[in-house]
């Protein structure tokens, strides 16, 4: 046996000894802590799914734990027959799709020139954007602006005020700055214009960051309730989150929206069941997208954190 081999085998033995004694306790404690935390997070989530598939009597009597009791689709039927939910679902889908497309168009078109190395006046424009992260006019001046633009109670007030998130702009700019300048020089020599360079080279190379931004913006629109609360009074334009608020938090049901034969208005158990099903229905798009989108979301955190 050579000296090196002796060294390795001794190391291995030492390793094993370490694991069998104190380390074992360490790993046990770590896994125990994590398991408790894991269950504390998973428990409520599973309980909500289980409740949503249970029957209203079991929910009303407080019998559901982590598995549906007498499984039915009663709750989902109640959600489907509630008119206001579907209109607002459609509105939210519209705000999310249209809003995200405009967000991307504006963010990319601002990020591209600001990512250039030597653009005159770049610094002041960047400062102009960055300053808005530190100071804002506030709630009322924003409200007065939309009022003067006649945008209150239109779809525009849901889309325009948040058109560019400066944080996302910085993420996007950092990414575009990473595209090697050689490509640009080569393209320029071949007579490629700035506009063509943007569309045929920068955009295709930025697919990752576009996915990251699209997801961030889309989730923002889907979950947005603040702008609707401030700027909308016309219930036809209400997004899902406002309807969710009246039902889930204020516990009030609109008699005109109820079309089902069963009278949901007087039935507390059914109301509770509907709430569980509604939580699932309203979060479904995000939960379905989550497994596929997770890595992009995480990338967003990383790119953002590089810039502090």
């Amino acid at each position, binding site marked *: 046996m050579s000296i090196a081999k002796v060294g390795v085998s001794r190391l291995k033995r030492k390793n094993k000894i370490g694991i069998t004694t104190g380390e074992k306790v360490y790993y046990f404690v770590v896994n125990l802590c*994590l398991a408790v935390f894991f269950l504390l*997070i998973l428990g409520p989530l599973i*309980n909500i799914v289980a409740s949503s598939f249970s029957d209203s009597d079991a929910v009303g009597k407080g019998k559901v734990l982590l598995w549906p009791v007498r499984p039915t689709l009663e709750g989902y039927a109640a959600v489907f027959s509630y008119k206001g939910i579907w209109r607002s679902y459609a509105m939210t889908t519209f705000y999310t799709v249209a809003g995200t497309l405009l967000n991307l168009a504006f963010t990319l078109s601002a990020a591209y020139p600001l990512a250039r190395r030597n653009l005159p006046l770049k610094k002041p424009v960047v400062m102009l*954007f960055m300053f808005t992260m*530190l100071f804002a*006019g506030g709630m009322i001046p924003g*409200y007065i602006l939309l009022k003067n633009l006649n945008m209150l109670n239109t779809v525009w007030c849901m889309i325009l005020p948040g058109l560019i998130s400066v944080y996302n702009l910085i993420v996007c700019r950092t990414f575009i700055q990473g595209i090697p300048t050689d490509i640009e020089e080569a393209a320029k020599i071949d007579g490629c214009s*700035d506009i063509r360079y943007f569309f045929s080279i920068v955009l295709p190379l930025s697919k990752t960051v576009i996915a990251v931004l699209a997801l961030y913006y889309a989730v923002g629109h889907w*979950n947005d309730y603040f702008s609707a609360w401030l700027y909308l009074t016309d219930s036809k334009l209400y997004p899902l989150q406002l309807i969710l608020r009246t039902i889930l938090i204020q516990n009030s049901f609109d008699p005109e929206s109820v079309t089902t034969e069963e009278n949901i208005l007087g039935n507390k158990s059914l109301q509770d069941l509907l709430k569980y099903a509604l939580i699932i229905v309203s979060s479904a798009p995000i939960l379905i997208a989550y497994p596929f989108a997770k890595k992009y979301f995480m990338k967003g955190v990383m790119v953002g954190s590089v810039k502090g």
Partner: protein
Amino acid sequence: MYLFLLLPVVWLLIFKYWPMYGAIIAFKNYRPADGIFGSEFVGLYNFQKFFKSVYFERTVVNTLALSLYSLVVGFPIPIIFALLLNSVRSKTWRGWIENVTYMPHFISTVVMVGIMMRVFDVYTGLVHNVLEIFGIRWTTDMFIGDKNFRNLYIWSGVWQGTGWGSIIYMAALSAVDPQLHEAAIVDGASRWKRVWNIDLPAIIPTITITLILRFGSIMSIGFDKVFLMQNDTNIAAAEVISTYVYKVGLKADSGMQFSYSTAINMFNSIINLIAISTVNAISNRINGSGMW
């Protein structure tokens, strides 16, 4: 090139800078008929009015209480969580923990508060149902009264944000050179000692930056969640500056006091600006690099 910038900059000027100009109504007695420029100038009257009102102390105390509480609880927990998760050896188990703990981050605030109201429901909530198995009657309505408001706000934040908040530390931990660990093993360092002497020092820079940012936003508690959790019984603990700005400004029954609301808003923004600038200057001195 400038063509690309044209629309974004026009948007920026209209939607971000015009409201900053509009904020001068804080020094005026704004009436829609007179417009922003034409309204009567009243100097610091609106600010003085706020400083003298009982809501000044109440909203500032509530805002600070919530952010300090969340600093003490919500700041260290993701760090501890990341350190623990980083020493998990099974890839599958680790993947499960990540997938489940990151998920609540994407739940909307409305649904989040809705879930809290479901889980803590006195008759049908999960807490009630579980305790019933052990024969314990759950009778506390967490949403009634101001006693539980802060706990509920902070710990639901921990529930929702710990996993996501740990990502940034996990990234720093994954950058640790494995040779350091190997060397430490050869020297006989236990796993715990390696966490303490290798992993923790490796994420200290990240911790410093996030801590600094936290201090910069010490006076800004977002509107959404607090507002959704408010009710008549907990308002004494649940009125923070941002919700009060809304209340005096846009809530029909408190008089639509545009100028007064803007003054309170501006007071808060200026404090935030001072906080973040101070913190940035300190960071410049310590790390040699600030945020800008």
